[in-house]
């Protein structure tokens, strides 16, 4: 038997990650600065870690209920209300998942019939398209543009919707561009969607990391509340990536279906991580604010660095990424990243890893120390100046 022939063609046809090769190169390098992995450099605040340890000491080593600990769902309900003005019933409308990624997967699996269209704005997190394809959905890509500050416009959305559209993914604050949607932007989207039978999956994992104005969830609009699934989690805001706790909030019908898949595939999110997450929501908001202030300073430092290096760089107002345009260097995204790593030992990620329309851009994360950022920006400036002179 040839195992390769046994594999699902859908999985075989999924493109391999475009950034893997750089990580392999990076691992062999000394003094390299990686601005590539989208995770906080902060370690989880100690009180949260301590709560996780205490839960183990108490012997809380069993499954939790499938939907997640009710205490945690209660805290999530309170948080969603206090922070974003969203009211959910913790018993019926909230599901605790293994990271926000699982919630994306569950939502698509619960909704999609093969052939349904899923609208995905790009550049964006790679999992939307991947998970959509696994369900047999047809991904419909909206190319976000630098001249629109990488925001989703009502016109582009309207054009992408067909009779087959089942789901629209709204990924803001955005990975990799750092774009946000203001209240006005969201209102435009609401106008397009309010009378349509289309489910919105609003991935708000970076909501806390909004540096100007308030994060606005599309679910706060009454006409959108029922048809929107809000996805969030602890990874980014609370620096808890490795704990794998996310959650989905939405219509009880959808949550119930997602719970079915979740209980077959996963059972429940890790119990001790859920206890740590309760502590995070109860007592760590000051830490979140401290980290957000720090990210904001690094953000300005990095944007300034790219601009001083002579690259066009739109100002990202959310998440922890900067998405400069590197077309003026005459290199492709891939060439830029490979050469930058080999010549200056700085790793950034090609924009193409987040969709074809990311061509000509790279993603750098400022979830890295100020010292690292200052040094990396020096190297990038040297690199760009050298190559620009070669290019001209």
């Amino acid at each position, binding site marked *: 038997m040839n195992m390769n022939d046994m594999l699902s063609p859908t999985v075989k046809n999924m493109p391999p*990650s475009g*950034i*893997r090769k750089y*990580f*392999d190169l*990076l*691992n062999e390098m000394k003094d390299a600065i990686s601005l590539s*992995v*989208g*995770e906080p450099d902060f370690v989880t605040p100690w009180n949260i870690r301590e709560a996780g340890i205490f839960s183990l000491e108490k012997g809380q080593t069993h499954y939790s209920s499938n939907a997640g600990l009710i205490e945690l769902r209660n805290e999530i309900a309170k948080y969603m209300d206090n922070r974003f003005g969203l009211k959910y019933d913790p018993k019926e409308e909230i599901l605790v998942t293994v990271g926000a990624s699982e919630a994306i997967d569950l939502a698509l699996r619960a909704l999609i019939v093969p052939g349904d269209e899923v609208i995905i704005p790009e550049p964006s*997190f*790679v*999992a939307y398209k991947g998970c959509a394809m696994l369900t047999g959905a047809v991904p419909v890509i909206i190319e976000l543009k630098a001249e629109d500050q990488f925001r989703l416009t009502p016109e582009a959305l309207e054009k992408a919707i067909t009779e087959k559209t089942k789901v629209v993914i709204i990924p803001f604050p955005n990975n990799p561009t750092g774009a946000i949607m203001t209240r006005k932007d969201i209102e435009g989207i609401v106008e397009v969607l309010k009378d349509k039978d289309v489910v919105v999956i609003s991935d708000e994992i970076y909501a806390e990391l909004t540096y100007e104005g308030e994060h606005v969830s599309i679910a706060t609009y009454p006409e959108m509340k029922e048809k929107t699934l809000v996805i969030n989690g602890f990874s980014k805001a609370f620096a808890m990536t490795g704990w794998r706790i996310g959650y989905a909030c939405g219509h009880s019908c959808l949550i119930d279906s997602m719970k079915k898949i979740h209980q077959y595939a996963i059972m429940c999110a890790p119990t001790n991580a859920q206890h740590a997450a309760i502590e995070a929501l109860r007592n760590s908001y000051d830490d979140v604010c401290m980290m957000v*202030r720090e990210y904001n*300073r*690094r953000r*300005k*430092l990095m944007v*300034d660095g790219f601009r001083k290096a002579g690259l066009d760089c739109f100002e990202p107002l959310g998440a922890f990424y900067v998405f400069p345009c590197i077309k003026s260097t005459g290199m492709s995204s891939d060439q830029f990243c490979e050469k930058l790593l080999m010549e200056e030992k700085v790793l950034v990620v090609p924009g193409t890893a987040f969709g074809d329309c990311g061509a000509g851009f790279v993603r750098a994360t400022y979830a890295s120390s*100020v*010292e690292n950022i*200052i040094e990396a920006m020096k190297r990038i400036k040297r690199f760009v100046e050298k190559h620009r002179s070669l290019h001209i």
Partner: protein
Amino acid sequence: MEEILEILKNNSRLNCEEIAVMLGKSAEEVKDTIKKLEDEGVIVGYNTLINWEKVNREMVTALIEVKVAPQRDKGFDKVADRIYRFPEVKACYLMSGGFDLTVIVEGKSIKQVASFVAEKLAPIESVLSTSTHFVLKKYKDDGVVFEKKEKDDREAIVL
């Protein structure tokens, strides 16, 4: 202004230009603000936090609990002043509870600290008693953990 302090607290080696970028202000503004904070005695110094255990240098630290008789009109301030002026004294705090002053003293040897206590500190008129505790190991100082961070040697994470 408070944000400048937050930045400098974590890293006093950043220059005005860098801080200015981080705050979206001009370097001049930052320079002026820092100058003002220095003049007002808000910023009182720029130190380097050193783990002396890594350097082959004899050094002992003692925490001394001191009971004193407060003086009329002057309270504890006068006697505290007498104590903290000694260069051996690295820190001096007025305390609530069972004793009055915490005095942190550094010296080259236990003997040197002991003689400081016996000859300088204890004989001060209003000092009623002292209780000296030597530090055996410093794990964390001024918010910084001394233990070296473990290297991040995870295999590739792709996302």
